[in-house]
């Protein structure tokens, strides 16, 4: 233990603690811009400097470790002067179109400037004039707003191990860019969107589809169908000012109807469908000696990552489309038929916590209905803004159900939104498929929680089924390297690109706070417990879609509409 004084207050902390974290223990927040909990500190912004008695210069409190007897001042005139001037310099370089910036409600630079009392920008001169990077169908980067904090670089490199963005050039030409400045759309970006969450300013955002969706809603010729991802019920409220984790499934359906969507369904329905197909596939692989472990395929961030970095594992990956794409294909076939609507008139919209889904809808193979299966993807943030724009008082809306045909869902589907959920849902159904009996202990605790890699063993009729769950691509790599080396003990692996799973998707309310992601997950588990059906195979709408249309899991129609194949992609 080390004892030091911070602003005259004594504090004793573990050796190796940073000054910034030690200060928290005496209730002092040291302002910062590039430091972010969960990422390695790099001290680019120089905002967190503090005065240490006996040292000639300010020290970076995010990286400087405490030492015995150290005397720290976090709020001296010298410290305040330095912080202010640094923020002033950043603003002088910044493309300050705050009123129209996506992030003006969540901008850390704006907040810092206000809190530090920056009242004037005394430096005048050139502003940046870079081109936007709009090469990706999912993510737009605006280097003009970048403060070069390096958080996106760190999350991409350290957490996701994708490493497609980095610093290029030097001096005042320094910028964050991709290999050869090719643009995000032309490198190995997985579109997971974690960079959006860590960016303190408006330099990275999703490619918006709001205007296109407004246009479709206004077009009387069009019939607009909407699906909402499992985790939306646990995060949309948060983006609209309700406490984190408020369950808003009913209000969400009501809001979507008021926005003018013609038919409100649920991605949860197709999540149940995914389970029917994927659990059947697993049972088939186990019984017939197919390639194992089977790896889930519902996360398009992970799929792109796999196609670039682990194409040799294509045979391991389930051929099931993601729930979003299963829904899309059925919305223009099954639903069109049932409702007697010309599929050419149907516009299929999905509300997703995810930026990678924007990429997924544009894959050429995602058109098995004869049309692009899903037309537009809106993120949590985009839908919330539409609701605000329409002046809908979300908190006061009544709870309304989705329409039954493709809107009824089980608790197994709801938990798709948090890491481990797909695994748990699949095991509930796979058990039934193999044994003919229902799994009694339906809550599979070992695959819950926020540990990076979780494992469990389930006895299924004498066979010990070994499973693993990884979230965040850095964790995924560890599990995948075992598979690649032929040393994987597992039968079934769930992988989600985003830390926390879809609860932490790139389209969610801004923030890299794992605890918050966990709270969203708790909401999903709570809904699971209170739903009338908790197993995908019990969902009456699922039984109906097989009876009336698909016939059987892995059947011919399923094969055509619900399954897909993968492509090896280059790594530069």
């Amino acid at each position, binding site marked *: 233990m080390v004892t030091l004084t911070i602003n005259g207050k004594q504090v004793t902390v573990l050796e190796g603690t940073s000054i910034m974290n030690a200060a928290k223990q005496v209730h002092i927040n040291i302002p910062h811009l590039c430091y972010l909990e969960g990422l390695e500190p790099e*001290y*680019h912004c*120089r905002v967190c400097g503090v005065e240490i008695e006996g040292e000639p210069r300010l020290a970076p409190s995010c990286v400087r470790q405490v030492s015995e007897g150290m005397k720290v001042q976090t709020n001296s005139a010298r410290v305040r002067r330095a912080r202010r001037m640094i923020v002033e310099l950043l603003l002088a370089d910044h493309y300050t179109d705050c009123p129209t910036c996506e992030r003006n409600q969540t901008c850390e630079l704006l907040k810092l400037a206000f809190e530090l009392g920056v009242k004037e920008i005394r430096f005048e001169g050139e502003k940046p004039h870079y081109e936007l990077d709009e090469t990706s169908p999912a993510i737009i980067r605006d280097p003009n707003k970048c403060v070069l904090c*390096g958080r996106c670089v760190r999350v991409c490199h350290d957490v996701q191990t994708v490493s497609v963005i980095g610093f290029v050039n030097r*001096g005042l030409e320094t910028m964050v860019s991709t290999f050869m400045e090719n643009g995000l759309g032309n490198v190995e970006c997985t579109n997971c969107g974690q960079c959006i969450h860590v960016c303190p300013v408006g330099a990275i955002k999703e490619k918006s589809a709001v205007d296109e969706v407004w246009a479709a809603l206004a077009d009387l010729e069009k019939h607009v169908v909407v699906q909402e991802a499992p985790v939306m019920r646990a995060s949309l409220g948060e983006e609209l000012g309700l406490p984190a984790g408020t369950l808003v499934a009913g209000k969400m359906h009501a809001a979507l109807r008021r926005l003018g969507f013609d038919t409100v369904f649920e991605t949860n329905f197709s999540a149940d469908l995914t389970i029917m197909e994927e659990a059947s596939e697993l049972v088939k692989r186990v019984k017939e000696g197919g390639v194992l472990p089977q790896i889930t395929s519902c996360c398009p961030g992970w799929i792109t990552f796999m196609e670039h970095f682990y194409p040799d594992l294509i045979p391991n990956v389930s051929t099931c489309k993601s729930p979003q794409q299963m829904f899309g294909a059925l919305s223009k076939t099954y639903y069109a038929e049932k409702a007697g609507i010309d599929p050419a008139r149907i516009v299929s919209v999905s509300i997703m916590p995810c930026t990678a889904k924007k990429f997924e809808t544009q894959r050429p193979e995602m058109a098995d209905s004869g049309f692009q299966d899903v037309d537009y993807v809106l993120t949590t943030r985009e839908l919330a803004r539409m609701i605000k724009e329409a002046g809908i008082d979300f908190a006061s809306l009544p709870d309304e159900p989705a329409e039954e045909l493709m809107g009824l869902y089980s608790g197994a589907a709801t938990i798709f939104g948090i890491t481990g959920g797909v695994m748990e849902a699949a095991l509930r159904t796979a058990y039934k498929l193999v044994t003919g009996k229902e799994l009694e202990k339906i809550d599979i605790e070992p695959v819950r929680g926020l540990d990076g890699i979780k494992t469990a063993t389930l006895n299924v009729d004498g066979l010990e089924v070994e499973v693993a769950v990884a979230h965040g691509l850095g964790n995924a790599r560890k599990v995948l390297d075992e598979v690649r080396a032929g040393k994987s003990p597992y039968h079934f692996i769930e992988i989600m690109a985003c830390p926390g799973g879809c609860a932490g998707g790139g389209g969610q309310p801004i923030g890299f706070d794992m605890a918050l992601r966990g709270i969203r997950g708790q909401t999903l588990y709570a809904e699971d417990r209170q739903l009338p059906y908790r197993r995908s195979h019990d969902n009456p709408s699922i039984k109906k879609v097989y009876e009336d249309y698909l016939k059987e899991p892995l059947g011919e129609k399923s094969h055509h509409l619900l399954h897909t194949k993968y492509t090896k992609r280059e790594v530069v």
Partner: protein
Amino acid sequence: MEKILTKNVGKPNSQDIEVYLGGGGYKALEKALGMKPKDVIAEVKKSKLVGRGGAAFPTGLKWEFTRRESAEPKFIACNADEGEPGTFKDRVILLNDPHLLLEALIIGGYAIGASKGFIYIRGEYYREIETVEKAVEQARTKGYLGDNILGSGFSFDVQLYKGAGAYVCGEETALLESMEGNRGCPDCRPPFPAESGFLGKPTAVNNVETLCNIPAIMINGGEWYSRIGSPDSPGPKLYCLSGHVNKPGVYELPMGITLRELIENHGEGVKGEFKAALPGGVSSCLLANLDVKLDYKSVARAGSMLGSGAVIVINEDTSIIDVAKNTMEFFARESCGKCSVCREGTRRAREILTRFANGGGKAKELDLMLELGEVMYDTACCGLGQAAMNTTASAIRLFREEFEQKVRK
């Protein structure tokens, strides 16, 4: 004074090992290998030698810190990046006496317990690189590099790295990043390279000139060396004299001669009227006083720093604003771009100085630049940003009227 660093310069084929051996070369290595490493370090400490790369850190202490670390392996890296404008001293040794450097580097490796040494040479130094490469080959052939050197049981080899044109890669932590194949950006210290350097292992980084003092210290003893020149920071110094002098060049002189002596006795006087000088290159503050002694302490007391000893003389015909602007163009281009304060500070200072140069300055921008200089000193991560405003700030302090004349009316 008898030449120590440049004693072989001018001899025909001075870069050849035979010529070097003929002048008593590699005798210091032989002697050092007969001593205990800690006694080698003790001798260096006794000499009071401090680093000539800019920071003037005691070399003996640096070696001791590196030796004391328990992590293995250890490395010694010679900084031959020589990128500071007005600095051109290390190349004299690299070109004319590469074996002096190699001998010193091997002794350093022995002292700290490293079996691998590196020389990081400025990429544009094509001839120097070739010369050092040849010298390394010769030393290997003669058994001064390789396994079991001179039967001592000590093994050591040297590897060359070439810089790619970034000034900041001369900063020791950026240099190590660059050697590792990373972006050349300085790291936060602590930890210092002595604790965590190349590949995270203890590494002593020493300037070329610094190292080249070692063989003489081994032969004659630290005591002897400490009596040369200024008692505070003793030894010979390679002064790089440039700017408005009649005879610019590299001069080996005892530490602590005055600026006047250097310019008048060796540089054959100022071209025109003396206005000011930068004693330590573009990172240092201007001196207007010719009687300052050019050793680390005296220059610091006079409000500047000796740095690597790049003395740039400026005459009365020169606009001090142009001088400041020139330095700022350099720093704005060469900042690694990592620290907000350095990247943005140097670019804004460059813009302000350009406006002043064109007669479009604002009066309040003078104090703004002084404040910026203080904040950059306080918060920038490495010496580049910390010192980038020195020339400008001292220009404002010494020649404020000149700036005021350029304020937009």
